[in-house]
C-alpha cells in the first residue's frame, strides 16, 4: 500500500516559531532528523520518494483562460499556509505502519530540540485494480 505523507506551512501544535528564528544547532538537528528518517525508511525497504518543495512565494498558479492560453498568478499568496512544504511517498504493509511513520515525522525536533508536532496529512495512493476473477 502506498501513502503520501504531506506537510504544509500551516500552524504546528507546539506553536514553534518558523525555522528562520531557530538557532543553527536546532536547524541542523532538524535536518539531520529528516535525513535519518529517510535513511531508516530506505533501510526498511519502504521509501519511494521524498521531496521538499520551494517556498510558497515562488509558487505559481496556472489557470486556463478558455481560449488556449492561461492566466499565471505569482505569489505571495494569502493562503500560503495551505501550500505543501514537502512530501514522502512510502510503500508499506499497512495503514497502521503509515500512521506510525507519520507519528515519527510529526515529532521532528524544532526550536530548542522540542517536538514541533507538525500535522502530517496521510493519504493513500490509488492502486491498480484487481483482475475480475
Amino acid at each position, binding site marked *: 500500500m502506498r501513502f503520501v505523507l504531506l506537510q504544509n506551512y500551516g500552524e504546528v501544535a507546539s506553536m514553534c516559531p518558523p525555522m528562520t528564528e531557530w538557532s543553527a544547532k536546532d536547524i541542523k538537528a532538524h535536518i539531520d532528523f529528516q535525513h535519518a528518517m529517510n535513511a531508516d525508511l530506505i533501510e526498511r525497504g519502504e521509501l519511494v520518494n521524498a521531496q521538499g518543495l520551494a517556498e510558497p512565494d515562488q509558487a505559481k498558479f496556472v489557470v486556463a483562460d478558455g481560449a488556449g492560453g492561461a492566466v499565471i498568478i505569482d505569489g505571495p499568496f494569502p493562503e500560503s499556509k495551505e501550500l505543501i512544504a514537502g512530501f514522502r511517498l512510502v*510503500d508499506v504493509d499497512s495503514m497502521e505502519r503509515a500512521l506510525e511513520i507519520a507519528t515519527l515525522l510529526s515529532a521532528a525536533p524544532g526550536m530548542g530540540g522540542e517536538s514541533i508536532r507538525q500535522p502530517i496529512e496521510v493519504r493513500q495512493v*490509488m*492502486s491498480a485494480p484487481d*483482475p475480475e476473477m
Partner: protein
Amino acid sequence: MPYTAIDTEHLLRSLAPQVLGVLLRRDGDFTAAEDAVQEAMVAATRQWPLSGQPDNPLGWLIRVANRRVIDERRGDEARRRRELLASSWSLPDPEPLPAHDDALLLLFLCCHPVLLPASAIPLTLRAVGGLTTREIAAAFLVPEPTMAQRISRAKTKVKAAGSRFRMPAEEEMHERVASVLRVLYLLFNEGYATSAGPDLHRTDLSGEAIRLSRALVAWLPDDPEVAGLLALMLLTDARRAARTTESGALVALAEQDRQRWDRSLIAEGSAVLNEALSRRSVGEYQLQAMVTSVHSRTATHGDTDWTEIAALYELLERLTGNPMVTLNRAVAVAMAEGPHAGLALLEPLAARLGSHHRWVAARAHLLQLAGDEAGAAETFAQAAAGATNLREQEHMLQLAASARGAGAAHDDAVVETGHS
C-alpha cells in the same frame, strides 16, 4: 547467429536458481549466497557480451558467486589470503544437482509463510526468477536501494525463522505449498492489474507468474491445486487484450469483445484444468479457474450460465469462508434468479463488508438491475468515493452518471406521460 545480451539474459535467468542451490548446499547462508549470486549475475551481464560466453556458464557463475561469498565473509583478510583462495577457485566444478529440485526448494524459502507478499514476491523474482534488483524495482516503481533493502530484510526474516534449504517436512507441506501458490497468485494479479497504459514497459510480472507456475506444475505434478492455479492464470491472461481500451481504460467483463480473447491460452488453460479436476480433489484455485472457464466457453455475456457460476461460488464460499466470495455469489445469484435474490444475500454482509467499496459497488449494480436508478446512482457515487484504485473509481463515476441519466430520462418520460 551473433551472441547477444538477450541470450545472456535468458541463460542467466535459467541458471540463477541452480547456482544459488549449489551455494546453499555448500554453505547454507541464504542471505550471503543470494547476494553473491546476484553479484555474479551482474558481472556476467557486463562481461559475457564483451568477452564471449564461457564454455561452462554454470561453472563460471558458481565460481564467481562462491568467491563473493568467501570475500564477503573474510573481509579484509580475503585480500591477504588471495593465494589460498585462488587455489579453491580452481577446484573442479561440483556436479550440479537436478535444477528443478533447487528451484523448488528456493521457492519454498522465498515464499515462506513468515513473509508478507510485498516481501516474498520480490525475493522470489530475484532468487528463483533470476531478475535483477533493478528490474524488480522498476516493475514495482520503487527506487533500487529501497527494493534491495526489502529483499535483504526478507532474507534475514526467512533465516531467523530457521528455515533450511531442504524439502519441508511432510506435515508442513500443505501450508508451505499454499504459501507458494498465494505468492504466485498475487504476483500474477500484480502484473495483470497494471498491464495497461503507461505501465506497459514494466517487466511482465504476469508472464513471470505463469512461467513459475508452469515449472511448479512439473515439480509437484500430483497437486491438483497447483494445476488449478496455472489454469486460472492462463484463462485469465487470455482476456488481456480485451480487458483495456487503447487508452488504458478498463473494460468490464460484460463489455469485453470475446473475439479478442486468446483461444490458444483458453485451450491450454482448459486442458490443465480438466486434468486437475480428474484427480477429484477440488480446491479454491480449481474452483476459481472453473468460474473463469464458464466465461471462457460462453460466446456472449448474455449467454452466461449464472446458475453454474453461483453454484461454484457457493462451493468456494464453503471452502474459504471469504466474504468477498459471498459477494461474488450474490451477484451471480442476482443474474440467475433476479436482483432481489442477490440483494437478500448481499445485505447480511453489511456488518463484515459494509464499508468496503466492492460491497457498495455490488449493491449499486443490483439496485440498478432492480430498476432503482436513483438508488443506484447514489450508491455508485458512494462506491466511487471509497475506491482505492483510479480505474475502478472512474468506472464507478461513469456508472453513477449513467444511472443518474437513466433516472432523469425516466422522470422525463413520466412527466411527458403526465402531459399527454
